[in-house]
């Protein structure tokens, strides 16, 4: 009994593992020319050049969290490395086992030492968030098997130079590998619900997730298409809009899966702005915006994996307070208003003070000014 209690204290659920893996594969980051070289190795040259990317670089021996990686790049470390560079202290990223160790939330094991925290399983037992390991060479995190039987997996691969979702390789990529299960993994997950939505804090946003087995199944129809049966399980996302803009969302799903995208102002289906089977474009104003990726039900339910990509050209954040002309009212009503910022409308738009010098705040106010002028026009 004691052993079970100890084990459960450190258990991680499969959906959390896959959530982490997606963040590594889609993580946006930028580098400058400083990160093309590394000060501890004269021969080092990054695969990357100055620019913006998604997905953490492959780094031989690397075991970085996302925050540590961003800080390391800001500090001027080299972006990624390969075995021929040697293990360098002045480069950042993850290697294949560093990546799997991170998403399993373990210490840094290698492909040759994972056996101490895993159990071999047969290929028929393979579940999402299990790994497929080749001791001494490579390891991948299994994510899904498509309707065409293609294994889809996350990996930090030196050949691809980055952490990625690999879907086109087929089973032969894993010829000679051994499926393994982390000893402290449990089924399920509790996030992506009305009470605990996936928070979107920056755009473009990308996510790869499942409605099959999703923790939420409370919204069955939407006001923007009340006769469409969406009574299958759903995944919920949320973000806050400070300045209105255009939201564009694309959902792609597998053969035999039907996941639709809905844009709402509250998580109840009653305040649906737009919905579609694959692509939706809609203007959204200040306040909370919810996305529901819901399972269509026809002759039967069509749950399964989906890929979501979203852009938004407004400003994310708490809505700017509305000036009533009474200084006592500004920012005083709680909710999503900014209690510490006072904003005054003028003929030239909106100007701000007491922004704390935040460039973001200034940008938000500037864009608010543009939006205000557009509305007046």
């Amino acid at each position, binding site marked *: 009994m004691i052993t079970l209690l100890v084990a459960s204290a450190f258990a991680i659920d499969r959906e959390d593992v896959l959530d982490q893996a997606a963040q590594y594969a889609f993580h946006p980051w930028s580098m400058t020319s400083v990160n093309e070289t590394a000060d501890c190795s004269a021969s080092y040259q990054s695969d990357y*050049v100055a620019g913006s990317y998604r997905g953490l670089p492959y780094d*031989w021996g690397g075991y970085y969290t996302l925050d540590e990686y961003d800080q390391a790049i800001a500090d001027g470390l080299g972006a990624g490395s390969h075995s021929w560079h040697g293990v360098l202290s002045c480069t950042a990223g993850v290697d294949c086992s560093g990546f799997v160790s991170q998403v399993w939330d373990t210490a840094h094991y290698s492909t040759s030492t994972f056996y101490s925290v895993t159990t071999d399983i047969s*290929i028929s037992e393979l579940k999402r968030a299990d790994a497929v390991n080749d001791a001494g060479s*490579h390891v991948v995190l299994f994510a899904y098997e498509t309707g065409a039987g293609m294994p889809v997996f996350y990996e930090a691969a030196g*050949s691809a130079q980055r952490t990625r979702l690999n*879907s086109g390789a087929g089973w032969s990529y894993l010829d000679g590998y051994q499926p393994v299960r982390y000893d402290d993994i449990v089924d399920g997950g509790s996030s992506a619900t009305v009470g605990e939505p996936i928070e979107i804090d920056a755009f473009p946003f990308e996510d790869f997730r499942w409605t099959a087995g999703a923790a939420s199944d409370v919204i069955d129809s939407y006001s923007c298409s009340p006769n469409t049966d969406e009574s299958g399980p759903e995944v919920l996302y949320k973000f806050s809009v400070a300045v209105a803009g255009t939201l564009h969302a*694309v959902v792609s799903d597998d053969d035999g899966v039907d996941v639709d995208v809905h844009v709402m102002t509250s998580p109840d289906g009653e305040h649906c702005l737009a919905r579609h089977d694959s692509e939706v474009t809609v203007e959204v104003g200040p306040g909370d915006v919810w996305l529901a990726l819901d399972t269509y039900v026809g002759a039967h339910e069509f749950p399964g994996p989906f890929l979501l990509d979203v852009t938004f050209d407004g400003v994310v954040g708490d809505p700017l307070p509305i000036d009533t002309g009474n200084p006592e009212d500004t920012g005083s009503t709680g909710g999503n208003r900014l209690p510490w910022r006072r904003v005054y409308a003028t003929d030239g738009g909106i100007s701000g003070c007491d922004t704390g010098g935040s460039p973001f705040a200034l940008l938000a106010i500037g864009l608010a000014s543009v939006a205000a002028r557009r509305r007046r026009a």
Partner: protein
Amino acid sequence: MLLFVSVALAGDVGSVGPVSGPDGLRVEERVVPWAEFGFVPAAQEQKAIGPDRVAAGADGLAAVWDPVRQQVLVLHDLVVQGAFAASRVDDLAFAGRDLVLLEGRTIALVGADGRDHGNLPVPDLVPTNIDLLVQGSDVWGVDPFGNRHAIAHVEGGLSVATGASFGGPAFAKVEVTPRAGALKTSVRTLGAGWAIVDSVVSDFPIGVERAVVHDGRSLPLETRSRSWTPADDADVDAEGRLVVIVPLADGLHVRRISQ
């Protein structure tokens, strides 16, 4: 960014193999020696790195990405014609006689001689993990489910894609009868009725047999060759033939398979 570094490496490099295959499929093969490519054997925590992307175009043109020497080799009728430097290529596809290169979140249009014809950012709405596909004058990214996402138009240069972003399935589904006793079967659809079928035939560890399939006919392909081999790749050319690269001990086998 792109430099033409060599031309006509040699018409006598490699060899043309048999021109007939089993099951009625016609096979042409050329072996390009490893001296022409970079290859890094697998190390602890790193798969082998070698040529792992191929694009097939019109009039016998093909191109192979060599990530180690950071070059694109251009072949004509399976013979290497030259190479140009490219610092980072995630995928490549032919648009007429030019090549579209996916370089991170940028696509570049280059001539087969490496001349730069411009580039464009990949739209933010296009997923990260995509394969390139050129159909007519449209450049698409194909996501893990085989659905297309509009990236650009290519006609006298690159231009921003207009209209809907989501383009639906890239290819018609290929129905395959699983091999008897297979534990798992994966079907990678490549267009023009071609597919690569992997059959998992044993467990602890995974053992796989691979075959090219067209119209119910199949041709076996090697797996796990050259020890820890990089993944092989395939593409359908403008004439509907399948071009596939297979890394073996004596070199990179470039095969063109037709009905």
